[in-house]
């Protein structure tokens, strides 16, 4: 379980997160939503120990993040930040194998090999395993990075804008994979995501932020409402029910 208590963060006197407290449910997809600069990515980075907080505490399975041994935590929690534009020439297979690093420290055993195969086939990229990352399309590359995170085989998977640069086909594929991770492998997935309709259709738990403060958290019935969305985005958003999903209409 991930518990967030009174988290605050400021950069050079500017407060970007204020007094955030919430608990993220196990075995669910949680999505952080909010406009640009609301503090979503900062919160995700603090939870995954990539950024130190200015105040408050994050507990992962009862233990404060700072008390975790870094390598042990890497077996419990995987994180992928946005913009993996790095021009490093690795093959897809090599990248995914790095997901096993917390376990093997580079010397892959049979179990590691199996996990790598599983991750590749889960994302349907076994056929491009020997291609170099810089020869792939943005979508394929993103899939390769997600496969690496899956190979890391952690209880918690934190992703910062995993749909960035993906076309709609890849976006849908990505969300279905994340759904499967939760439903079939029992993972807990935590996302920062901009596309409100993907959130509405796929997330179990939604955390809404505005200007560094928590506006609300709950299921889609609680958050995907004209009132809450107006509060977050300052936009008048019409919500239609289509085939049991709440779809936000805000394009015109």
């Amino acid at each position, binding site marked *: 379980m991930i518990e967030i208590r009174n988290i605050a963060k400021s950069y050079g006197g500017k407060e970007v997160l204020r007094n955030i407290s919430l608990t993220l449910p196990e075995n669910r997809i949680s999505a952080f939503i909010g406009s640009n600069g609301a503090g979503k990515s900062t919160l995700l980075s603090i939870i995954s120990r*990539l950024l130190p907080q200015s105040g408050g505490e994050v507990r992962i399975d009862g233990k404060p993040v700072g008390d975790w041994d*870094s390598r042990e935590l*890497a077996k419990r929690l995987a994180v992928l930040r946005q913009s993996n534009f790095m021009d490093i020439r690795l*093959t897809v297979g090599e990248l995914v194998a*790095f*997901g096993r690093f917390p376990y093997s420290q580079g010397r892959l055993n049979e179990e590691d090999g199996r996990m790598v195969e599983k991750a590749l086939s889960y994302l349907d990229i076994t056929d491009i395993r020997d291609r*170099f990352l810089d020869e792939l399309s943005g979508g394929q590359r993103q899939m390769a990075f997600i496969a690496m995170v899956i190979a890391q085989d952690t209880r918690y998977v934190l992703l910062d804008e995993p749909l960035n640069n993906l076309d709609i086909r890849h976006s849908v594929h990505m969300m279905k994979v994340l759904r499967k991770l939760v439903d079939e492998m029992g993972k807990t997935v935590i996302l920062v995501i901009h596309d409100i309709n993907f959130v509405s259709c796929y997330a179990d738990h939604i955390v809404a932020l505005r200007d560094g403060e928590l506006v609300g958290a709950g299921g889609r019935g609680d958050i995907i409402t004209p009132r809450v969305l107006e509060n977050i985005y300052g936009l008048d958003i019409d919500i239609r029910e289509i085939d049991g999903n709440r779809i936000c209409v805000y394009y015109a």
Partner: protein
Amino acid sequence: MTSRATLPMAIVLAALSLLSLAVGNAGFILGGVSALESGPAGLLLISRVPRLVAVVVAGGGMCVAGMITQTIARNRFVSPSTVGTVAWCKLGILTGTLAFARAPIMPRMALAFAFSLAGTFFFMRTLSRAPVRNIVTVPLIGMILGAVVESANTYLATRYDLVQNMESWLQGSFALVVRGRYELLYIGVPAAGVMYLYADKFTIAGMGGDFARGLGLNHGQIMAIGLSLTALMTSIVTITVGGLPFVDLAIPNLAAVFRGDNLRSNLLDTALLGADFVLFCDLVSRLVMRPYEVPVGVTASLLGGSVFLWLLVRRNRLAGA
């Protein structure tokens, strides 16, 4: 770890090595080696073999150091010679010569290493404060820092009448390598071994701090280890044979084109390619105007620079296509 290119490169290395042993003013036939110290065997043991070992270790070592620098700095245009490590090392050697000229090589080596290390960290520190960090500014900052240090070197050398001494030392030449003057280079072999042990960690560090921390690594620590090892390799090579311009820049780039950026799989090929290249440069240096020698630094600049230019043009053409 090995690739299709590994064996051919090893064969080339063996062939060039034999050639290197046979080339020289006092010609001799390999079959005629006798036990006499004053005869061909003496020549072989005192001069030719040390020279060969020096070339192979220096060439391989500098290219491995260059490859690691490029990977952890996430920039293909940096290398110990472009980020100023070599310039700092020369300053260290010069300081050592001025302060205690009669001291044995080890303390002077330690001083050169300390200067290289400090200079490399100073570069990384400067870099982390630079407002703009892109593919061009990173090596540019390194070259500016290096040039400032080089000018200090020139000043010191002029002031204390060491210009000739410094030029002959640091031009990059294997001509002075004889038994008793090159053994320091052997430290490069275990240093390269340690680099290989850390290969995966360096590759991960090269994918960025967040990425490394996400996999449970202490990014700062890995960077420090990587920079220290490359500074060590640079100072060992610079103090024994001098600077080999462009080699540590061009050869890792060439190796990365066909072997990728995964250090665990590319380091061996990089070392072999580097040894092949420098050995070739050394042979050219010895043959082009025999019985005299051109400093290998000159040959290496010309050939290494050409390789680097060719890679740049090729890259632009690929990008344009």
